[in-house]
Every structure is written in C-alpha cells, then in structure tokens.
C-alpha cells in the first residue's frame, strides 16, 4: 500500500496527553492511523503535514465526520490490518 517507516496508531482524543506525545514523535515518512476517539483529530484540522494520515471509516461515520474525512485516507478493517503488516514498525498510542 505504502512505504511507511513507523505507523502511529492513535485511538485517543486530541485532548488526551498521549495525543500530543504522538504528534511530537511523528517523523517524516511515518504514517498516522486514526481509530476510535483518535478520528476527532480530523475535526480540529490540526493534522501533521509531513505524514500520510489514515482514518478508520466506521469510527469516522460513528462521529459524523464523513464530510471532512477527505483530509485523510479512509480505510476499512481489512486495509487497517494490511497497513499494520506493511509498516516497518508500529506504535499503538
């Protein structure tokens, strides 16, 4: 799918301290996969620009964010698994 060094899986809302740590740790060439409350990052418009951003579609739909999900690449459960397999490293925040 992509060449990703480290895939950061973020399931915490932007208010959670760990979300900030995740942003600080992101390097060029890393990927960010938003799941659960993590998809709320899409609503803040504060996405990291150096990285590929993915968002889990059912979590996006649950929160009524389908209309702004264009800022991220939408993935289903199968694609999420593929992403985690293809990345060199994974950090689950």
């Amino acid at each position, binding site marked *: 799918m992509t060449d990703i060094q480290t895939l950061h899986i973020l399931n915490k*809302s932007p208010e959670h301290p760990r979300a900030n740590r995740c942003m600080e740790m992101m390097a060029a060439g890393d990927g960010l996969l938003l799941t659960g409350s993590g998809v709320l990052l899409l609503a803040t418009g504060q996405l990291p620009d150096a990285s590929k951003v993915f968002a889990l579609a059912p979590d996006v739909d649950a929160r009524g964010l389908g209309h702004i999900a264009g800022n991220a690449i939408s993935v289903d459960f199968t694609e999420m698994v593929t992403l985690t397999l293809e990345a060199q490293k994974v950090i689950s925040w």
Partner: protein
Amino acid sequence: MSTLIMIDQPPYGAWTGREALDMAFSLAAFDQPASLLFTGAGVNWLRQSQDAGGIGQKTVEKNLSAAPIFGIEAILADRASCKSYGLEESSLIDGVTLVNNDAALLSEYDHTAFAG
C-alpha cells in the same frame, strides 16, 4: 437543588459519558432540575449525522434527543470547545445552547458533577 452534569469525554470511546447521561435522566425522572454541559472533546457528542451502526453502538445523538422529553432543562455546549472541533451552530443537533464554561456559569448551579 439544580445539578449541572459535565461531559468532557468524547463519545463512543468509553462508557463514562453514557453513565453521565443516565445520571441526568435519573435526576429528571425524580423531577430534580438537571442540565448537561458538553465541553472539551465532549462537544463531539453534539455533531449532527452520527451513525454508530458500523461500530455496533447506539448513536449518542439520538439518545441525547430524548433529553427534553425526560425533562432535562438545558443542553449546553462550551463555545470555545466547539470552535476547536470545527462545530458551527449549524452543525450541532437541535436544542443546544452555546455558553462559556466559566466560574460564572458554574455558580448558577448548586451542584456540578463530572462524568467519569
């Protein structure tokens, strides 16, 4: 005695928010004045067009729309939090009043309790 229940947790991630909603409904059941204040990531409860079927949950937007029927006095949302999550008044569910979550607001209630 008037109670303000604060929800600062995002929807769906944890059960604490639903428990707070339940607490508010229980107060209303016994005709105790209760209001809900959504603040921080909690304002995401109030966005229109949620569909939680794909994650096997009930849609909080629909649950929340029962609040006025049960006698919840007001559904309040912190203005600054809405702004940071890109929520305009037009993208909020019906019946939400924008307020500033500050000491003056809390002083209007006898008791303020957080969810979770």
